[in-house]
């Protein structure tokens, strides 16, 4: 009976160890996205990360995903956790969108540069070119290109979809100039005839 119990315990432990090893080595892109959410990354940037990783999920190994998660956690510990009490949050997982924005406002430009450089360096390890724009604004955008091909771009949350786009404005100015100059010439010609 004692031998049977020992064998059972050993077998159970072995099964658990094997299953844990399987789980531990099966880190996926979704784990990296979840880690970004828990690290206090703004929703827009989490979504951009997800849109980048999903089509390229097979290009990274589980170990590389672990490395991404480790780097995100380093950024979280260095730049998000120290500000939790200032925004009234108990943990990074509990951060609301407004609290994340508030933490972003607390960062100095030096800290923002350090975070951006860490992300750029992380991407460079995997042949991913990360470009950060509008870094010192409330909504920085991140462009990511893999092997030179841009996967996700730096879209504004609400795009310019009217005549305020520069090209449309210039075209409108050209039409207005044409109309004004044409009218002035016509009046001058009429006056000369009179």
């Amino acid at each position, binding site marked *: 009976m004692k031998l049977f119990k020992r064998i059972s315990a050993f077998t159970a432990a072995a099964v658990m160890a094997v299953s844990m090893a399987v789980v531990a080595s099966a880190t996926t892109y979704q784990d990296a996205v979840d880690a970004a959410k828990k690290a206090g990354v703004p929703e827009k940037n989490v979504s951009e990360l997800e849109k980048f990783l999903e089509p390229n999920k097979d290009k990274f190994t589980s170990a590389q995903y672990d490395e991404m998660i480790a780097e995100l956690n380093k950024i979280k510990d260095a730049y998000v956790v120290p500000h939790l009490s200032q925004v009234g949050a108990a943990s990074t997982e509990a951060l609301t969108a407004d609290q994340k924005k508030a933490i972003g406002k607390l960062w100095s430009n030096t800290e923002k540069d350090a975070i951006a450089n860490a992300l750029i360096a992380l991407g460079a390890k995997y042949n991913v070119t990360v470009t950060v724009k509008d870094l010192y604004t409330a909504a920085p955008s991140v462009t990511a290109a893999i092997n030179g091909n841009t996967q996700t771009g730096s879209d504004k949350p609400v795009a310019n*979809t009217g005549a305020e786009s520069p090209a449309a404005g210039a075209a409108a100015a050209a039409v207005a100039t044409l109309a004004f100059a044409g009218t002035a010439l016509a009046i001058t010609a009429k006056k000369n005839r009179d």
Partner: protein
Amino acid sequence: MSNSDTVKGAEQTARVHKTTSSSRVLRTFTYVLTPFLILCILCSIGYLALYKPYNEFISNFNYVFSDVTPETKSLRTLNKYRDDDAPIQMHEIEVEVNGKTEQHTMVYPYYGDYYATLNCEAAGMKDIPVYSGQADDILMKGAGWYNASSYIGKPGNVVIAGHNHTDFYYLPNCKVGDTVTLETVYVKITYEITERVIFHETDYTYVEPTEDDRLTLYTCWNNGRLGMSEWRLCYICKPTNYEWKEVPEAE
């Protein structure tokens, strides 16, 4: 000579002087400003005529005169954001269809790729091209799918924007209850418009992820006029049908 003759003579003299002064002004105006006005007209015509060709060829111009060596330059005639021979990105995904889980193929676009075609026949919107991304140059070619929103066919909020003076000119004609279709190479989704909203450009509520599945279409809103505006007209659409397609394997 009578007084009236003297007055008449004085008036005639004054009219002659007046005519001479105004003709001097007119001559000055004619000789000095006419060439300037002609130059303005020619420049405006030239700008408007070259507007579209310039936008078509500027990427090639930059490619030729960039400082990247010829050996490292790759051809980008289809989309300036990726090489012409960039690998096609396809993956099998699992989707719930009528309570059953099915496997279907999804084709993921690169930034700037032609992604989908949008139709709302009731509003007069036919075969509107939808590209991946919302950069200024992309929105000049067609409507743009917001990169941080859900992929078409995946759960969540799919957000598409377009200019009010081009592709989304007829968007204000849409009404609640109208049918909208969005078709990619891997799925065709039919939606019904359920809500019409006007929001400020600083309000990100309608472009954020949602728990439910929806399509959000928006454009600039200037109370029915074209032009600059801080406001956006938005239609929220709920999916009513998914037609998944067989996608041939990439070569």
